[in-house]
């Protein structure tokens, strides 16, 4: 188990770094797919096999195909001159991200973060998120958010069709 965690973690971080560092958008998309597969492996380690399967189907199967389709439709080439950010901008971006990371670290280190010690009660059966349990929760306790999500998806479909169809003058 620990080895698998470190393999997936290193794979996820390395391909994420390659994603934001690579110039060609198609390679960026392919590296993001590797990251998503590594995250799906971590989800399996965390007792969430259903979420892992849905993650691969939705992200690697649908969303990334959409990304690759748009990249190829727009025929984007790796434009080095336009893509290279100024050195000042790059420095500022990384500095801001580092500040954010330090803030996250402070939250984890703070005294209020005692939720980390409060482990699950021993003796209760370990809950595994398989299709049966997730479906039962989704159609009883979370029925209203589930229906609201379907309305959201419908409006997104209509909105994207209208946005992409109309010729902008």
């Amino acid at each position: 188990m620990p080895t698998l965690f470190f393999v997936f973690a290193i794979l996820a971080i390395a391909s994420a770094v390659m994603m934001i560092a690579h110039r060609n958008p198609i390679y960026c998309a392919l590296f993001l797919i590797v990251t998503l597969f590594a995250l799906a492996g971590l989800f399996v380690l965390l007792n969430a096999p259903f979420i892992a399967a849905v993650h691969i189907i939705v992200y690697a199967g649908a969303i990334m195909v959409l990304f690759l389709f748009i990249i190829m439709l727009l025929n984007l080439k790796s434009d080095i001159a336009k893509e290279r950010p100024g050195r000042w901008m790059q420095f500022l971006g990384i500095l801001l991200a580092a500040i954010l990371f330090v803030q996250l670290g402070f939250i984890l280190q703070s005294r209020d973060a005692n939720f980390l010690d409060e482990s699950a009660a021993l003796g209760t059966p370990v809950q595994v998120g398989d299709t049966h349990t997730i479906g039962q929760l989704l159609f009883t306790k979370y029925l209203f958010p589930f229906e609201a999500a379907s309305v959201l998806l419908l409006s997104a479909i209509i909105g994207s069709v209208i946005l992409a169809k109309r010729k902008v003058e």
Partner: protein
Amino acid sequence: MTIPISYYLLLSGILFIIGVIGVLTRRNAIVIFMSIELMLNAVNLTFIAFSKHLNSLDGQIFVFFVMVVAAAEVAVGLALIVAIFRLRESVYVDEINIMKW
């Protein structure tokens, strides 16, 4: 031996920060979108790690809804990029200044 939850939180934080760096330093709008997806996935990892830590499935349901919102966001966002590309022949965000006063 099980992995302590702080490892998962650290990994999630690192992935989120990589996404932030991507959004702040890249200029290609599609790559910026992919970085946003990376940040959403980092948050999903946190949800599932806490879901296991607290032995509750509610976190996994939330990941489900985050995925729904991410799919909707990608569909609308890519449609916007296509519409702007038709208008400007460019997806580089510093050349898209329609809303600049």
